[in-house]
C-alpha cells in the first residue's frame, strides 16, 4: 500500500496551489538536498509530463528550488525561492522534456558543486506524496511505507558489515535491504528499509564508517 498514514490524505499543510505540483515537488527537491547534504551551486531540473506542461502556473519551479533550499511544504519563503537561490549563487536551469515517462509527474534533478554531484529522479504521486525512483543511476525500489536509509559507498568487502553492525548496536531492525553497484570495485548503493525512525546521530555514525561516502534517510 502506497499510502499508510491518514496524514497523507488529510495533509500536508502547504502553500498552494497544487499538492502534486507544489508540495510533492518541494519534497522531491528537499530529498535531493538531504541526499546531497548541502546547498548545491548548480541545479538542472528536467520536467516531464504534466510537470513540463504546467510547472509555471503551479509554481513547480519555485517548489523544487525551495526544496533544494531545505524548505518544507508549508514554508512561506517558497514563493521567493528562485530569487533567494540565485542570490546565494545557485545556477538554475529548467528543461521541459517531451519524453514519455511511467508517471505523469516526473522530475530529474541534477545538482552539484565543486566537490560533488548528485542526480535523482522523483515522482509526485498525488496529495503531496513523492517517491524517489532513481539515485545516481541506481534504480530504487523503495516501498515508501517504511523509513529508509540510503548509503552510497565504495564496493569493498566490509562496507555492508560495518553499516549493519552500527544498526544492530543501535537496536534498529532491518526490514528489507538491497545492494547494487555500477561495476566491481566502483560506487555502490545500499538501500536499507527499517522499522523505526532513525536519529541523526546514527546517520553521523554511519557516515564515519569505513568505505561509506554519503548517507541520507527517507522518512515514512
Amino acid at each position, binding site marked *: *500500500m*502506497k*499510502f*499508510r*498514514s*491518514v*496524514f*497523507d*490524505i*488529510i*495533509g*500536508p*499543510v*502547504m*502553500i*498552494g*496551489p*497544487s*499538492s*502534486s505540483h*507544489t*508540495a510533492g515537488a518541494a519534497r522531491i527537491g528537499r530529498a535531493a538536498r538531504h541526499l546531497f547534504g548541502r546547498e548545491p551551486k548548480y541545479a538542472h531540473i528536467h520536467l516531464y*509530463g*504534466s510537470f513540463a*506542461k*504546467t*510547472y*509555471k*502556473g*503551479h*509554481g513547480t519551479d519555485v517548489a523544487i528550488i525551495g526544496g533544494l533550499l531545505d524548505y518544507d511544504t*508549508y514554508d*512561506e519563503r517558497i*514563493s521567493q525561492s528562485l530569487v533567494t537561490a540565485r542570490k546565494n549563487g545557485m545556477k538554475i536551469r529548467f528543461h521541459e522534456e517531451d519524453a514519455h515517462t511511467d*508517471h*505523469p*509527474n516526473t522530475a530529474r534533478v541534477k545538482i552539484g558543486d565543486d566537490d560533488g554531484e548528485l542526480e535523482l529522479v522523483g515522482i*509526485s*504521486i*498525488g*496529495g*503531496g506524496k513523492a517517491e524517489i525512483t532513481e539515485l545516481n543511476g541506481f534504480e530504487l525500489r523503495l516501498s515508501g511505507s517504511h523509513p529508509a536509509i540510503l548509503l552510497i559507498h565504495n564496493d569493498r568487502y566490509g562496507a555492508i558489515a560495518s553499516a549493519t553492525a552500527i544498526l544492530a548496536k543501535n537496536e534498529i531492525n532491518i526490514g528489507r535491504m538491497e545492494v547494487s553497484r555500477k561495476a566491481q570495485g566502483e560506487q555502490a548503493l545500499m538501500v536499507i528499509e527499517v522499522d*523505526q525512525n532513525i536519529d541523526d546521530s546514527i546517520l553521523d555514525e554511519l557516515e564515519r564508517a569505513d568505505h561509506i561516502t554519503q548517507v541520507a534517510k527517507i522518512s*515514512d
Partner: protein
Amino acid sequence: MFRNVAELVELAESENIQISEVMIRQEMEVKQLTREQVFSQMERNLDVMEKAIEDGLKGVKSHSGLTGGDAVLIQNYMKNHTPLSGNLLMDAVSKAVATNEVNAAMGTICATPTAGSAGCVPGTLFAVKNQLNPTREQMVRYLFTSGAFGFVVANNASISGAAGGCQAEVGSAAGMAAAAIVEMAGGTPSQSAEAMAITLKNMLGLICDPVAGLVEVPCVKRNAMGSSNAVVAADMALAGVTSRIPCDEVIDAMYKVGQRMPSAFRETAQGGLAATPTGRELEAKVYGISLKKE
C-alpha cells in the same frame, strides 16, 4: 489494516465503533504514536483549515487575477437573500470556494486529499457545524472519517488529477466529505459508505482541464459543486437510500475510467475548458504570450 471500504465498515460495525475511531487506532499502530499525538496533529490541520476559510471570506485574489472574491459575493448574497438551495448548502459552497481561493492565491491550506480539492472537506465541515453544533473533538473526528475513505481511494485508485482526472481529486474529496457528514449527523458506518458511493458515482468521468495549467479555473467552482454534491448525498444516505453499486466497485470504476482518460484531460491544460477559445485567451494573458505562437 483495512484495504477497502467493506473492511473499514466491517471493522467499525463488528467493534461497534465509529469510522473515525478505526482510523485513529490504525494511525496509532502504524506510526507508533499515542492517541494524544495523533489527535493533536489532526487538530493542527483543523486550525489551518479554519484560518484558510477566515482568510478567504475576507476576500483574496490570485496572482493571475483569474480567481478570488467569489466567497465574499456568496456570503453577501446570503445576508440579503434566502438562497433557493438553502442556507447550509450555500454556506458550504462559500467556504469551499474560500479555501480554494486562498490556495490559488498561494496561501496556506491543508491538502484534503489534494490542494486542488482542498475545499470540499473543510467547506462542508464548517457549514454543517452551524446546524449540528459538534464539539471540537467531533470536528477533528470528521477529518479522520474523511481521511479513512480517502485512504482507501488513494490505495486502490488514485487521488491525483494527473493520473486520474478531476474525479480522482474533487470526486474523492466530495465522497470523503459526504461520508464524514453522515458520521457527524449520527448515521451508521455503512450509511457513510453509501454517501461516499452516491457522491463518487456522480463525479465519475470528470476531467482535469485547468485553464493555463493553474489550479483556479474550473477548480474553485468544482469544489463548490463537489461540496453541494456531498451534502445532498449525505442527506440521501441518512434517509436510508443506498447505492445499487457498492462503494468499493464505484472506486474501482473511477480508477478504470481514469486509466482510460486521454492525457489531454489529466492536468496537462491541453483539453476541455483549457482548450476553449476563452481558456486559451486567458492563458495567453497570464503568461504574456502571443496567441499566434501556438
